[in-house]
């Protein structure tokens, strides 16, 4: 091994260590930023190490690619609003997977269209193109659904699972054929095509609100594709980074499914979570709802000494994070205490609420996890529910026939009084009615969350 090769390997090893340290630093918000800078340095090392590779003889294509990538990447990183995070991440996975796929295709093509490839390498290349290609189309579909370019509802068709399984079998069959005979263009291109199709058909039947689970799973696939690239070209940093991503994506999608109290299989094959649009299914049988004026709600909040804000998906939709902070400021000015109750699957992405509230400059020690905040509802004067619904639905505790039965929820119904901000009596993501809204202690303040909150702020100021 030449000195140059040794230096390259050292750079790759250092990059791997930096990636691990970077992810490790995310275990604490105070260390996270520095850690991610380390990870970025690791990426730089990996790039520089690769450029020193003796196999690289021409640089103009590289430079063009790097410039384009940077020019697109910077606005993507700086301009995208926090509320659009899920779709941003989805489309990025698509890019990463496309890169892996193209590398695999190229590797196969330049080695005599498979003729110069042994079976071991072909196995790795096959994995790479298979996972890569289905991640590309899958991510695009997820992006489309999240950005609402495509209908968010699950799109189903007859014999749906049979088609999917058939395609999967076809892809695996072609893959097997390729391993036996790598120099088989028909099989190779057919496999790529089938993989692209699988990506589309795999995501179509999943509801828009379940997309975060899909995105996370695709992250895992993108990681596996990168690891397969590593096996194919014998590069350890690819294997390690790929394995890290694979583990992370897999774990997060499991965690999300669990927190939604659904099995992973149910998310992927259930075609659930599309009925968000219509009004609540089992609505209002003889129960009455008490609605409140902004003036009265403002008085209640102004004189409360303990307020807990419960943000949900509606906060993200209304982009109301900054107004919520202003309201809290007003309450605190008058001597009240404001805390935030963060349910693990509030919003549409793990950690969604935390990012939004952090954006509004709310210190993270006021954002309390479900386990920490639940005991505090007992001594809370007002629970202010801002666009949350399922995560505060007592049916999860009391009604065994409810689809969300068993999901841990925020005990908002234990608070002395509750104010709910939402636009209508429509259901949330799970499409079910919420008994909390009919309780005598609950007051509904209808309207867009941002508008209602602004009113509340104005009213409190003028008190």
């Amino acid at each position, binding site marked *: 091994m030449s000195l140059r090769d040794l230096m390259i390997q050292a750079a790759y090893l250092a990059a791997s260590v930096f990636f691990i340290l970077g992810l490790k630093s995310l275990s604490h918000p105070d260390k996270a930023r520095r850690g991610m800078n380390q990870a*970025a340095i690791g990426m730089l090392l990996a790039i520089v190490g690769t450029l020193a590779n003796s196999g690289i003889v021409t640089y103009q294509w590289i430079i063009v690619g790097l410039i384009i990538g940077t020019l697109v990447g910077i606005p993507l990183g700086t301009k995208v609003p926090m509320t659009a995070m899920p779709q941003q991440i989805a489309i990025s996975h698509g890019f990463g997977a496309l890169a892996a796929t193209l590398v695999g295709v190229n590797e196969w093509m330049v080695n005599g269209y498979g003729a110069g490839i042994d079976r071991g390498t072909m196995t790795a290349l096959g994995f790479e193109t298979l996972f890569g290609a289905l991640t590309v189309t899958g991510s695009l579909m997820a992006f489309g659904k999240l950005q609402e370019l495509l209908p968010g509802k699950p799109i189903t068709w007859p014999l749906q699972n049979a088609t999917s399984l058939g395609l999967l079998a076809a892809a695996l069959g072609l893959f097997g054929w390729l391993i036996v005979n790598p120099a088989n263009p028909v099989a190779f291109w057919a496999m790529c095509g089938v993989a692209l199709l699988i990506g589309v058909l795999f995501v179509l039947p999943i509801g828009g609100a379940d997309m975060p689970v899909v995105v996370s799973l695709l992250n895992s696939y993108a990681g596996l594709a990168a690891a397969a690239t590593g096996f194919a070209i014998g590069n350890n940093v690819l294997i390690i980074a790929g394995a890290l991503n694979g583990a*992370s994506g897999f774990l997060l999608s499991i965690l999300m499914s669990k927190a939604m109290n659904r099995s992973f299989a149910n998310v992927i094959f259930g075609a659930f979570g599309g009925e968000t649009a219509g009004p609540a299914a089992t609505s209002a049988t003889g129960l009455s709802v008490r609605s409140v004026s902004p003036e009265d709600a403002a008085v209640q909040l102004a004189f409360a000494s303990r307020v807990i804000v419960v943000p949900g998906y509606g906060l993200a939709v209304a982009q109301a994070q900054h107004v919520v902070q202003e309201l809290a400021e007003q309450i605190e000015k008058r001597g009240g205490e404001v805390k935030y109750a963060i349910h693990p699957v509030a919003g549409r992405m793990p950690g969604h609420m935390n990012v939004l509230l952090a954006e509004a400059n709310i210190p993270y020690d006021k954002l309390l996890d479900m386990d920490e905040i639940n005991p505090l509802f007992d001594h809370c004067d007002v629970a202010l529910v801002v666009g949350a619904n399922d995560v505060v639905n007592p049916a999860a505790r009391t009604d065994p026939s409810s689809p969300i039965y068993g999901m841990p929820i925020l005990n908002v119904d234990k608070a002395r009084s509750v104010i709910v901000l939402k636009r209508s009596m429509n259901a949330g993501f799970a499409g079910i009615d919420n008994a909390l809204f009919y309780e005598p202690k609950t007051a509904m303040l209808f309207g867009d969350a941002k508008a209602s909150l602004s009113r509340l702020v104005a009213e409190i100021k003028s008190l």
Partner: protein
Amino acid sequence: MSFITVIQLYVFVLAAFVGFMVITRVPPLLHTPLMSATNAISGISLVGSLVAAGSGTHRISNILGCIAVACAMINVVGGFVITDRMLKMFRRKPDGARGGSATP
């Protein structure tokens, strides 16, 4: 299967262990930054793309490689920038600029 492939398998398995252990320690508070961080790291495909784009033997490699480099670089740049943007927002106390809040 060569001996090298076998050791690479060890590397993969160990890295997956490290991944699982590291990720389980990330609090829900930081799950969104985590998603974008792994997204950025998955731009590591760049390594393979650069080799293809810089190859001196086939024009097709240069073209496919160039596209791959661009795609992976979007991932890297976009991912790290956005992660940093998010992490910058997480603070224990609000910064001095906002004078309103009553808690010290």
